[in-house]
């Protein structure tokens, strides 16, 4: 791989302050709002990272209550995802499903969130029962809502109940007001709605950055794959931008509750609002890290130039970029959507962090896109990203290599409120089914879902937003589509099962895991479903070759899910951990863990909360929440070995074309890994050998990982493990586990 060099002369010259505005109807929309409930409260700032209270809102009964954050909550669950899971556990019963009123959406930023001195410290964790998986989903999201929620006085927000009319929850952390408003005529799609609401609730221009809006869009209402957009005001572009709580359909739950938006007006942010125990350590650690980015980013990942899209061509070069529904790992047209292109297309003259102090600045924006299709055809918009996942999911995985169409797909996913990763994987599945005759024009209502047909993909998405046609069906997600296609006898059930890339009901994110056993486990042996944020080990396994042995892989699937869980307990972003590394990292012991950065996190937590931890305690903190979540899954009827099963497409070649496209590699594995001779065998026979070998080693990996995690071979945490973690103090947790031992 040649090192990409940044060439400023190739950056497109676009006026990044120019775009279509949507503020004309603001006054009329505001006039139609009706106050349903208003209370006053006393705003407060955190003490050592915690405000020590959470806010409960029932959108049906209009109850608004403050709850104390107990010492036990802080000790066991830390914050963020931990608080979300704890509140959700108390809110639901085993029989509760996503659209029951008792299901909650919990937003919690975590004790470190809101720090302004280190990169990636503005995250909130969103937890709910997923419409796709029926178990808890957690999503780690940037934008300003979480930190401003905390600086307005709350460590978490619980939303429960179902309203019968569209409502907005407004929290004014400056004035100490909480208001539920009926919002009958508000725009539906996020890019319009959030712009209108940001200007509606800001008292003047200087107040705009103090507003953050959580919203979704039209497609969340008609599908199970809805996501939430968390806004932040981009001062240079002078527009509202978003980060997404994407996975698992939380946007769908949001609209099922008839919540149109959450709006927060926080206090003006300063550098000490967490009131940390040791601000000096935080300042020094932050400055050290900013210097590291300045010195190393340009010769390492170039996150400041490209964001996460910097890995498109790397994945392609290592045969890991998903192409045509995860069949292949590279494509001759990848150069059309590689980082060199995005470097020229994404605006480079601006800041692009999704919270203050993020020197990694990966929240790139492509300005000046004029839309070619849909309800906003002709409008000029700013598109967030595209991130790697979007370039791969909406692009290569569907055979789409036209960057403008890719941006348009990205834009509509965002404004319609659907997850780009989920949409990419489900569209790729639909396209493969179409190519293989499982679907046809009649079955798709006229959509010609062939590889590369961006217009058809866009039309399917517009249908999803309108709640009509094949698009509405597709919005049910891969799992339900598989069931439907099999039920309708539209194709070979085994083939449909093999190529539908979901696990637990959640679509795979965009890495080709066939040649990385560690990543196969990293996807399938997860709590929430196959999302790389829990165990993105493909790079260290395949590219850096840091996990050569079976034991290394099993150990990585113990350590990294716990290490990465910890980000979500505290309000950290994962990217600053390993998208830049100290110059001497490769010579350090356990280089794949980036030990200096691990120490940074230990220091930042200790300095914020005043609780001194070390790297072992960090993992122990995560293990409590991770195992609690596993038990929660079991309580909801999943979470066992059978639910960790992976589709064969994630493990090996399903079809002849896949095998024959990489025949040399596969034949060699027959010789070297299986000790057999491929000569004289048909492709089908060789595929069968591979299937046996690959599923066998995956099963062996499951055994090893479960054992390492302190679980039974059925994937159930043992009583000893619960005791070790102190989770035995919750009798109901023990009770769930006992039924499965």
């Amino acid at each position, binding site marked *: 791989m040649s090192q990409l060099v940044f060439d400023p002369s190739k950056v497109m010259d676009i006026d990044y302050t120019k775009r279509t505005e949507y503020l004309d109807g603001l006054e009329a929309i505001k006039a139609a709002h009706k106050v349903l409930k208003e209370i006053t409260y006393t705003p407060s700032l955190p003490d050592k990272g915690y405000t020590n209270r959470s806010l409960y809102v029932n959108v049906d009964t209009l109850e608004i209550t403050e709850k104390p954050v107990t010492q036990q909550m802080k000790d066991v669950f830390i914050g963020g995802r931990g608080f979300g899971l704890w509140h959700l556990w108390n809110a639901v019963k085993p029989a509760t499903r996503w659209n029951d009123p008792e299901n909650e959406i919990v937003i919690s930023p975590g004790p470190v969130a809101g720090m302004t*001195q280190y990169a990636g410290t503005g995250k909130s964790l969103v937890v709910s029962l997923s419409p796709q998986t029926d178990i808890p989903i957690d999503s780690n999201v940037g934008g300003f809502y979480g930190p401003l929620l905390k600086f307005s006085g709350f460590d978490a927000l619980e939303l429960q109940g179902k309203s019968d009319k569209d409502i907005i929850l407004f929290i004014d952390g400056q004035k100490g007001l909480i208001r539920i408003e009926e919002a009958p005529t508000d725009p539906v799609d996020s890019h319009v709605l959030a712009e209108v609401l940001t200007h509606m609730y800001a008292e003047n221009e200087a107040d705009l950055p103090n507003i953050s809006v959580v919203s979704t869009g039209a497609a969340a209402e008609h599908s199970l794959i809805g996501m939430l957009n968390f806004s932040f005001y981009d*001062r240079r572009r002078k527009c509202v931008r978003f980060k997404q709580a994407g996975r698992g359909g939380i946007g769908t739950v949001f609209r099922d509750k008839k919540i149109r938006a959450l709006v927060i007006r926080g206090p003006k942010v300063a550098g000490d609002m967490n009131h940390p125990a040791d601000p*000096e350590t935080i300042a020094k650690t932050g400055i050290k890290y900013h210097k590291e980015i300045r010195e190393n980013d340009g010769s390492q990942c170039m996150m400041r130039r490209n964001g996460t899209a910097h890995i498109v061509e790397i994945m392609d070069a290592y045969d890991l970029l998903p192409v045509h529904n995860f069949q292949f790992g590279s494509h001759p047209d990848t150069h059309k959507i590689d980082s060199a292109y995005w470097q020229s297309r994404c605006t480079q003259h601006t800041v692009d962090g999704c919270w203050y102090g993020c020197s990694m600045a990966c929240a790139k924006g492509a300005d000046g896109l004029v839309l070619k299709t849909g309800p906003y055809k002709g409008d000029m918009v700013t598109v967030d990203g595209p991130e790697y996942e979007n370039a791969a999911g909406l692009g290569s995985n569907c055979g789409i290599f036209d960057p403008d169409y890719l941006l348009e797909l990205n834009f509509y996913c965002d404004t319609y409120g659907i997850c780009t990763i989920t949409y990419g994987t489900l569209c790729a599945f639909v396209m493969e089914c179409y190519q293989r005759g499982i679907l046809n024009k009649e079955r798709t209502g006229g959509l010609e879902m062939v590889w590369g047909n961006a217009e058809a993909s866009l039309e399917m998405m517009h249908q999803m937003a309108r709640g009509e046609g094949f698009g509405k069906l597709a919005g049910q997600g891969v799992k339900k589509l598989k069931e439907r296609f099999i039920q309708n006898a539209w194709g070979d059930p085994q083939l449909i099962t093999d190529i539908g890339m979901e696990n637990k009901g959640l679509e795979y994110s965009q890495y080709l895991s066939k040649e990385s056993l560690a990543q196969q486990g990293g996807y399938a042996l997860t709590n929430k479903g196959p999302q790389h944020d829990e165990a993105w080990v493909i790079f260290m396994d395949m590219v850096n070759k840091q996990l050569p042995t079976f034991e290394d892989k099993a150990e990585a699937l113990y350590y990294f899910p716990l290490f990465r869980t910890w980000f979500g307990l505290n309000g950290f972003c994962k990217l600053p951990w390993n998208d830049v590394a100290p110059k001497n990292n490769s010579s350090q012991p356990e280089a794949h863990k980036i030990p200096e950065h691990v120490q940074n996190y230990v220091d930042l937590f200790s300095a914020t909360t005043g609780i001194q931890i070390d790297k072992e305690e960090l993992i122990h903190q995560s293990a409590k929440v991770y195992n609690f979540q596993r038990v929660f899954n079991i309580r909801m009827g999943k979470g066992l070995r059978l639910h960790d099963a992976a589709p064969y497409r994630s493990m090996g070649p399903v079809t002849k074309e896949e095998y024959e496209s990489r025949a040399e590699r596969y034949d060699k594995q027959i010789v070297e890994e299986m000790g057999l001779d491929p000569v004289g065998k048909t492709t089908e026979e060789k595929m069968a050998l591979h299937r046996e070998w690959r599923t066998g080693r995956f099963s062996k990996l499951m055994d090893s990982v479960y054992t390492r995690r302190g679980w039974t071979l059925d994937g159930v945490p043992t009583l000893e493990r619960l005791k070790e973690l102190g989770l035995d103090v919750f009798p109901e947790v023990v009770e769930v586990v006992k039924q499965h031992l």
Partner: protein
Amino acid sequence: MKQLVIDFQKCDAGRNCNHECEMECAVRVFKVDDPKQAALQIKAYEDGGGHAVLCDQCGDCVVVCPTEALKRNKLGVVMIDKKVCVGCYMCIGFCEKEAFMRNSDWLTPHKCTSCGVCVKVCPHGALSIVDVPEPPVRII
């Protein structure tokens, strides 16, 4: 733009003075009796000569500041608006000259604003304020 420059033909890196420039800056600009808090720092090399840590108003910090707290004034000097600053210290981390500074007692960082108080007190006449063209904005 106005820029503070130092002439090391005249400055002897504090060997024969009392760092009057630093003290004047600390006391008059930052109201502290500690030359370490001054926005210019004169360092002597062991084998003779020396160098100064000071802001040349290059503007890199303006580019990286997330809140637009850093802007050039009419004289081209980069000024910090403390009311807008969120204390992220990216300006410190991204300053190649290490001229952006931090006092542990203050939330916001500080640097030289070419005010010239140091110029008047230098016993060797080594400091001066010059007018130079603004460099082009860099993509950082």
